[in-house]
């Protein structure tokens, strides 16, 4: 449609607001309460514009553009009205510096750091220079506030982890309250009291920690002033560089803007342009980047065990020692472990190293027992191919969602946001999980599954669906049988009816459902449930690069002799050497003559090593990862490698060279990536040079028709193997942040089972 703004004819797509239409065409309209991703609020009243034919000025943010509209965004009357309103807003905000004639020169002369509890002017404000109020004052050219100032009462709240709240800086734009409710589905922050006494707070004025806050930090990111601020960076000087990094701390693959200065990371905020996260993140990505990278237990030097204890060594010495000792254990006598926290480049070189250089029998890695791997196995066995790839937005668009036991805010924070979005669109969400407490978003139908009854539950639900849709055969599912199988599950029949209400139906499951016993049969029950309900299974695993690892592993599967024993497992002879580049169930299995650990942190595993090779974290080295959706993302590095740490691929590359493997000398991560695309067809999308606008996904087999998996032949051919423990959602490269980081520990300690 076409409309006129300030005399310019403008064509817009969809149904934008006047503010969006104006901004998209480079027309500046001041605004403080509007924020992309939030519903129009129209409270700050600065974006008032005139629309021909409408009585009085209308807020551009809350008015939908209509065909043929004639809009004027700036007249002397409008500007004077805006200035009048801004003067009033400033009467509630410390404004001395904002309207000071000396404000530009003052900044150069400022000598004190802003280490004050209360903020009385911009020079002391944590967001000085980034404050939206400053920008609006500048744009409207305010010189004086002719009203007495009204400071909001109350001290700066500093009793929560991560976040400081200072109501005296608040302009009540409501963004934090809205993002908390509309986007995060948390509704922790709220307006308290009324009129000029209104403040932002929590129910009963409790701490955020006691109000169900998950500390996603979204409120900080939307706050136009410094009212809600990240404590850790509040008193820091501004960052020098800001780099786009794909968050390695879970499988969502959020885009982060990591801020650093002088080779140190200061903090991170979610990238508003992030493909996965659109400006959202979780407590890990938002607050823990700095603590993860600059952890006191970081390995910064290669080490060699000498006389029973580890000593620092040069890379040359460490690599030489490692190569000469590893050389004795080729051909199946060495076990290699990999990690889902490494990049695809690292893993590709690791698999090459294991198969070509060491000729190991396999690489043991945490993806063998994942939901995605299990789903793939059952599909293979049954002869069907359902896609593993999905898009986060599919979840938000679903009409019906069955959530099976996953604690989404903890393990899949971004998927959780899509569930919240679906709920806001009145989708049916059924949350089934352990009867003694599981995650269930507000507005979801809650079903409890008694412990150990997971298989029965899935079968009963399938039976109920067959019964309702009139497809049950008398032989298999007589009503008596049905009643029997439904016994013990309250509300299951009603839930089954709801499940059939709207399509698309997505069934979200993750390792939580599969972790207890009988996984193969549970997987086939799950597959049948999806088949009968006409829904799609979405496997939600936790590791950062699990899907990437899985794709590389399956490409290399044929190159290994296989049938290796689980490292440290009971069956078969124990391997005599270990190359540890991933989590191990046992620290140092009996009979191991050589343990080489390639890792980033000094932990029990590293302490048991004979040779320690320090590896960079994902924040220090560029690399490719594949997130839970199957989305391939290339991450940048925020800072250079710390200490002597090197990227995993580089370490393995040097080691392979020392061991005399031809044709494996990579000079850069790009070279590895080129080879990866050649060798692993799933990564084909990564091959052609692509602009930032192209979305890349793993290539999958074409989906085939779904089938009912019989009870008997559905078993996977391989014997069940205990998956290597990934450690939990807060573990990065063996570093348990929930234990190591004081604030996260506090938060996780509060986590109680919810129902």
């Amino acid at each position, binding site marked *: 449609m076409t409309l006129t703004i300030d005399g310019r004819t403008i064509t817009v797509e969809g149904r934008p607001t006047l503010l969006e239409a104006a901004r998209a065409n480079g027309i500046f309209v001041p605004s403080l309460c509007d924020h992309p991703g939030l519903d129009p609020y*129209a*409270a700050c*009243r600065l974006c008032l514009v005139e629309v021909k034919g409408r009585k009085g000025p209308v807020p551009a943010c809350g008015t939908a553009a209509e065909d043929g509209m004639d809009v004027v965004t700036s007249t002397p009357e409008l500007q004077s009205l805006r200035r*009048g*309103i801004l003067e*009033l807003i400033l009467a509630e905000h410390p404004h001395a510096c904002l309207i000071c004639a000396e404000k530009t020169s003052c900044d150069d002369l400022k000598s004190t750091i802003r280490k004050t509890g209360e903020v009385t002017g911009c020079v002391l404000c944590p967001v000085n220079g980034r404050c939206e109020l400053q920008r609006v004052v500048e744009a409207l050219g305010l010189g004086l506030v002719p009203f007495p100032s*009204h400071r909001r009462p109350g001290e700066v709240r500093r009793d929560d982890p991560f976040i400081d709240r200072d109501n005296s800086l608040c302009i009540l734009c409501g963004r934090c309250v809205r993002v908390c409710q509309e986007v995060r589905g948390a509704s922790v922050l709220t*307006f308290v009291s009324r*009129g*000029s006494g209104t403040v932002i707070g929590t129910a009963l004025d409790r701490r955020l920690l006691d109000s169900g806050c998950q500390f996603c930090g979204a409120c900080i990111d939307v706050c136009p002033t410094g009212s809600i601020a990240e404590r850790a960076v509040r008193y820091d000087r501004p960052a020098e560089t800001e780099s786009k990094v794909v968050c390695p701390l879970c499988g969502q693959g959020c885009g982060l803007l990591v801020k650093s200065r002088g080779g140190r990371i200061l903090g991170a905020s979610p990238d508003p342009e992030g493909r996965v996260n659109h400006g959202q993140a979780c407590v890990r990505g938002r607050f823990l980047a700095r603590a993860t990278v600059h952890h006191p237990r970081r390995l910064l030097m290669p080490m060699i065990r000498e006389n029973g204890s580890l000593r620092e060594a040069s890379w040359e010495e460490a690599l030489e020692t490692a190569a000469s000792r590893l050389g004795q254990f080729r051909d199946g006598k060495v076990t290699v472990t990999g990690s889902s926290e490494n990049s695809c480049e690292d893993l590709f070189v690791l698999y090459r190293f294991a198969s070509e250089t060491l000729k190991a029998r396999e690489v043991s890695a945490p993806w063998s027992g994942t939901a995605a791997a299990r789903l793939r196995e059952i599909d293979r066995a049954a002869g069907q191919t359902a896609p593993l790839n999905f898009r986060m937005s599919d979840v938000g668009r679903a009409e019906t969602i069955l959530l099976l036991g996953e604690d989404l805010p903890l393990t899949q924070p971004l998927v959780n946001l899509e569930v919240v979005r679906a709920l806001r669109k009145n989708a049916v969400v059924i949350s089934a999980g352990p009867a003694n407490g599981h995650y269930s978003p507000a507005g979801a139908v809650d079903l409890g599954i008694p412990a150990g009854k997971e298989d029965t539950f899935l079968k009963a639900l399938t039976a109920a669906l067959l019964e309702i849709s009139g497809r049950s055969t008398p032989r298999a599912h007589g009503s008596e049988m049905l009643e029997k199988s439904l016994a013990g599950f309250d509300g299951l029949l009603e839930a089954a009816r709801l499940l059939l209400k709207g399509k698309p139906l997505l069934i979200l499951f993750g390792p939580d459902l599969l972790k207890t016993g009988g996984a193969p049969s549970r997987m086939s029950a799950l597959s049948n449930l999806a088949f009968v309900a006409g829904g799609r299974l979405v496997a939600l695993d936790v590791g950062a690069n699990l899907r990437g690892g899985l794709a590389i592993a399956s490409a290399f599967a044929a190159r290994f002799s296989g049938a290796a024993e689980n490292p440290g497992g009971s069956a078969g002879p124990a391997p005599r050497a270990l190359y540890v580049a991933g989590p191990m169930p046992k620290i140092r299995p009996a009979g191991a003559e050589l343990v080489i650990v390639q890792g980033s942190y000094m932990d029990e595993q590293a302490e048991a090593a004979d040779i320690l090779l320090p590896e960079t974290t994902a924040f220090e080295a560029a690399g490719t990862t594949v997130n839970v959706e199957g989305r391939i993302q290339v991450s940048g590095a925020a800072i250079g490698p710390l200490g002597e740490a090197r990227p995993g691929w580089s370490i393995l590359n040097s080691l392979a060279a020392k061991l005399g493997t031809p044709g494996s000398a990579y000079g850069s991560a790009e070279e590895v990536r080129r080879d990866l695309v050649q060798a692993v067809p799933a990564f084909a999308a990564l091959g052609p040079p692509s602009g930032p606008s192209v979305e890349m996904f793993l290539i999958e087999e074409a989906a085939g028709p779904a089938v009912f998996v019989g009870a008997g032949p559905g078993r996977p051919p391989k014997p069940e193997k205990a998956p290597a423990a990934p450690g939990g959602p807060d573990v990065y490269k063996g570093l348990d942040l929930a234990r190591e980081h004081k604030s996260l520990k506090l938060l996780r300690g509060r986590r109680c089972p919810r129902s």
Partner: protein
Amino acid sequence: MADIEFFKHQRLIVLRNRGRIDPEKIEEYIAYDGYEAAAKALASMTPGDIIAEVSAAGLRGRGGAGFPTGRKWDLCRRQPAGPKYLICNGDEGDPGAFMDRSVLEADPHAILEGMIIGAKAVGAARGFIYIRDEYPLAVARVGIALWQAQDMGLLGRDILGTGFDFDLEVVRGAGAFVSGEETALIASIEGQRAYPRQRPPYPAERGLWGKPTVINNVETWANVPSIIRRGAAWFSGLGTETSKGTKIFSLVGKINNTGLVEVPMGIRLGDIIFGIGGGIPKGREFKAVQIGGPSGGCIPKELLDLPVDYESLTKAGAMVGSGGMIVLDEDTCMVDIALYFLRFTQEESCGKCAPCRIGTRQMAEILARITAGEGRLEDIEKLEALALTVSRGSLCGLGQTAPNPILTTLRYFRDEYLAHIVDRACPARVCKNLITFTIDPGKCVGCLLCRKNCPVNAITGERKKVHVIDQAACIKCGACFNVCPAKVQAVVKCTGEEGRALRGGTSVPKDA
């Protein structure tokens, strides 16, 4: 009744059953033609017919804004099929008005019947009657009415065998003035904080739970049965060109006959005050009447010939609003009255939008300064600029109309503002900082009454001797003034230069 002034000017349509029927007995309502209109609408009228009738009658929203009811219904009817809702706005927040309460308590079935007709017109199957919880009797009586109507098949499934389904329920208000704003009221029913939102979209397009919703005031709904029963022509025969039918006002303040009055639209303001109201008590002089609730305006005695309808009142700076009419006599300070109403709107501002939240507070503070005798000449300019910012900039009706008391008093009683600021005097002798109590030695009979009643013992004097007030100790509570016998009237209030002289204070420099 035609010879009694109080009744002569009134025309009872909405209040016709008040006191005549037992509101807890549906049979009595039915006996006075109750539910006849609903039966007619359900059995023999199409939605189009009903809306045409209501439109032809010229019924406009009695909540105060005066939006044509027929047009609102039609807009809702034309929305795509799906759930639609009706809401009766019974959140009567104006402390000085009580016509909604009266109708809810005295004739609840009229509202039910109006809503049944409205439901048929727009195709709604569910409705809500939102009643402020400070009206427990209204909640109880509407509850009884709903139960009786359901029992008689006038609500619920297949009403009167016509196949039409409609259900009503009561929602008790959460207790805020702003909840009476329609979008805030809808948010309140949804369980949200009662914050208004930007319109358009209007509730008729996107209302309760995002569905098309017709929300009308109690009095509007109660008008509907009579229109359907007696026809649009009868209704539009009452009133003026643009404002049809009758309107209930609550007549309160300094007036002899207080209470609810239902008058035809267009009646002369003077007829209400001096005819129905019987004038001002104690022989005082009429000064102004504040119309439309806390954000209405003050109409001075020069405008007593003003016809009372939507347009005329708005033009004069007031509004129909809540229908409150507070009569003010010569002893009222207009600056003080403006401050009183601004304090109310400031406290009741929801706090969502900046101009209303902060602007009402700043205006109230300036007024407080003026009444305290600390006003400056530029304060008047500042008030006018602020009033414009708040009325043009605010999100909802509360803020948009909140400056009305200031604007009208500045318009009609500017000299009083100037007296406060320039002369440091309160002509009505109300503002404590600007007045001085003194005892006229020529009149004082030495009865000791004032001395006994003075809470701070500021009065000295003996029986049969002239009493004297110690100005330094006086707290200006006015107890002496009130107890001094009417036939004596020795205690007098002075203001301005005269008062200051009594206090022994120096005169204020002219340029202050």
